């Protein structure tokens, strides 16, 4: 995290002369192209990004051996690891991150978020020139009370070529109290590829109730996560899968009055850097009540709709590289004990004992093979640690992700 404190910032006002500069128009945009140069040498032929986004590639960390890979006939190239970073480890109101990644045929990429959870900082209704996030001066000041512009947004657009594979297992997003966030992740696969030549993807998208250490329990304003997979063949696009979750406290439906008169001390850049290490600092209020801080309505719509879970998420698996993992998840799901079954033979408790990881009572999950061979896993767990332990455990137990992409692909789990 040393880079957090260094002073090298890209600023719109003082651009670093770069041959790529002209192709990047707006702050928060990034573009990556991964090509396979002969004979079998994955190379980032394009890598550009602009503050507050930072993209850090790392190659050569893991070399798949022909024996280790289940698809040795397709001769997997080395996975390139891309770290997706934002300054401060999260998104401020008005931040718009826009990442476009192109994986050319036969390449492989691992994308992770090494900063821990993606923090969604709160939308401050009275954002003015004096708030610390503007003092830093690098991000555009947002007009107050503008619902669209004060929302944090993240767009990820990945084009996965024939026989290419993306493994994207990030940390969850953690929306802070009063925050607003929308994320659209679009994955485009090559429709003309068949069988083992298909594009492969593994995408995890999960969201937590907020900072439990500060008593947050789904009391942000808005969080939307949309994941789409499209197939494309000669310019003809078709929607294969859309997973869309909308968590909206519906406070915007009524005439927007500020929900709270609390002093705006969260969501400021000064704290941002501290929270990367420690959630509770001198700035934070230590005596925050665990439930329903003042100003919140007692009935929290989002909590009502996610109850009893503290984290919900989706894992999308597709393509030959993740076929084994998909089948494993389906099998694990189907071999869960039947709900409501009884052991009639003795006076044992009504439910069957839970022997394995996948049966953990704290995780409610479902796996289904939906259309076009996609395996969709949806889960809800009581907290982040439980979900992480459960999902990481299952993926490690199956083992193919570590074999194909290296253990570092699982660093967020």
């Amino acid at each position: 995290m040393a880079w957090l404190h260094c002073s090298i910032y890209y600023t719109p006002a003082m651009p670093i002369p770069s041959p790529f500069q002209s192709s990047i128009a707006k702050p928060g945009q990034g573009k990556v192209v991964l090509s396979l140069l002969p004979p079998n040498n994955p190379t980032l032929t394009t890598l550009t990004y602009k503050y507050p986004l930072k993209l850090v590639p790392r190659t050569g960390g893991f070399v798949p051996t022909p024996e280790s890979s289940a698809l040795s006939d397709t001769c997997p190239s080395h996975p390139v690891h891309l770290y997706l970073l934002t300054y401060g480890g999260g998104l401020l109101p008005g931040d718009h991150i826009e990442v476009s990644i192109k994986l050319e045929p036969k390449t492989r990429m691992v994308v992770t978020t090494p900063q821990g959870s993606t923090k969604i900082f709160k939308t401050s209704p009275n954002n003015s020139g004096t708030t610390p996030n503007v003092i830093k001066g690098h991000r555009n000041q947002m007009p107050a009370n503008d619902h669209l512009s004060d929302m944090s947004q993240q767009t990820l657009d990945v084009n996965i070529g024939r026989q290419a594979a993306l493994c994207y297992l990030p940390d969850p997003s953690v929306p802070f109290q009063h925050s607003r966030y929308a994320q659209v992740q679009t994955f485009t696969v090559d429709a003309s590829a068949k069988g083992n030549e298909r594009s492969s993807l593994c995408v995890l998208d999960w969201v937590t109730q907020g900072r439990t250490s500060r008593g947050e329990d789904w009391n942000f304003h808005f969080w939307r996560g949309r994941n789409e997979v499209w197939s494309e063949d000669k310019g003809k696009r078709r929607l294969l899968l859309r997973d869309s979750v909308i968590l909206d406290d519906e406070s915007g439906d009524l005439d927007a009055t500020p929900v709270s008169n609390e002093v705006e001390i969260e969501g400021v850049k000064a704290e941002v850097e501290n929270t990367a290490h420690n959630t509770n600092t001198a700035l934070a209020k230590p005596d925050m009540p665990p439930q329903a801080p003042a100003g919140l309505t007692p009935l929290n719509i989002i909590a009502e709709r996610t109850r009893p879970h503290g984290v919900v998420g989706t894992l999308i698996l597709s393509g030959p590289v993740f076929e084994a993992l998909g089948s494993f998840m389906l099998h694990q799901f189907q071999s869960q004990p039947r709900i409501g079954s009884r052991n009639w033979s003795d006076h044992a408790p009504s439910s069957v004992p839970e022997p394995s990881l996948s049966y953990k009572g704290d995780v409610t999950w479902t796996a289904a093979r939906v259309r076009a061979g996609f395996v969709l896993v949806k889960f809800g767990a009581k907290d982040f640690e439980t979900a992480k332990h459960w999902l990481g455990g299952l993926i490690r137990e199956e083992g193919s992700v570590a074999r194909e992409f290296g253990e570092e692909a699982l660093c967020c789990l």
Partner: protein
Amino acid sequence: MLLKDTQELEAEVTLLESRLQDARAQLAASEYPSPPSSWAVKEQYNKTNNNKPTTSTRTSLHALLLLSDSALPLGSFAYSSGLESYLAHNKPSRTAPITSFHRFLKLSIASIASTSLPYVLAGYRQPSTLDTLDNDLDASTPCIVAQRASIAQGRALIGVWERAFRVSFAGPENRASEDAQAAATAIDDLSDALKSCLEDDDLGPKGHFAPLWGVVCRAMGLDLQQTAYVFVMNHAKAVLSAAVRAGVMGPYQAQNVLAGQGLQDTMMKRIAREWNTPVEQAGQVVPALDLWVGRHELLYSRIFNS
């Protein structure tokens, strides 16, 4: 004196009638660009009741009653929309079963409105996009339990349309309006595509319920408000009917809930909220519901298909 009064009153009646007609014409022309309010619905039904029914209102009322009938052979009785699984996951030990059920009903209506209603409205507004809507809804349905339920009811709706309604609402001797005819054509096209589609083509046409509902309602002359309201109301009725059969409540209590102002307000609020939601923005607002519906398969004993 008395005669004069009568004449004045008659003149006033004529004036009011002409104003009413003007207002009606305006309303028809605007085709409900804004979400309905409960006031508007009441007003509309009052008008229907107090005045001589025109042919079009009579036809639309007749179609409305047909489509809201619980005996409409769609097999809706076989689906609990996750209620059965919800009850298994949330043992009503501490809370009263009725309270727990009311929570489910509210969540279920919010969820159907956010995930399916945009497709109903889009189907009604653009019948010609039915095949795209069908594909996109199929792509957006995350669990196979819900998918099976939606497809089964959608195909049943096509069946009812073709075997029963088509001849009366789009038959050769029946002069259907131009856009009702366009809607009928869209249903025919999807039906043909379904018949010619190979079984193993899992990206082929499916016949999902929500967009078809919108198109069928248009073909039968319902307005957009009625289409949306009946869709959500039928869903509420199916959930309540499932509740009665699952032993959550008695039939009178279920009718009490159905008749209640609370349910009406919830429905109107959800419809108004999703009125202008484009299908790309449709999504699940109750993530827990996807889990319950998906885990229906894990129930040891089941009386419903979803």
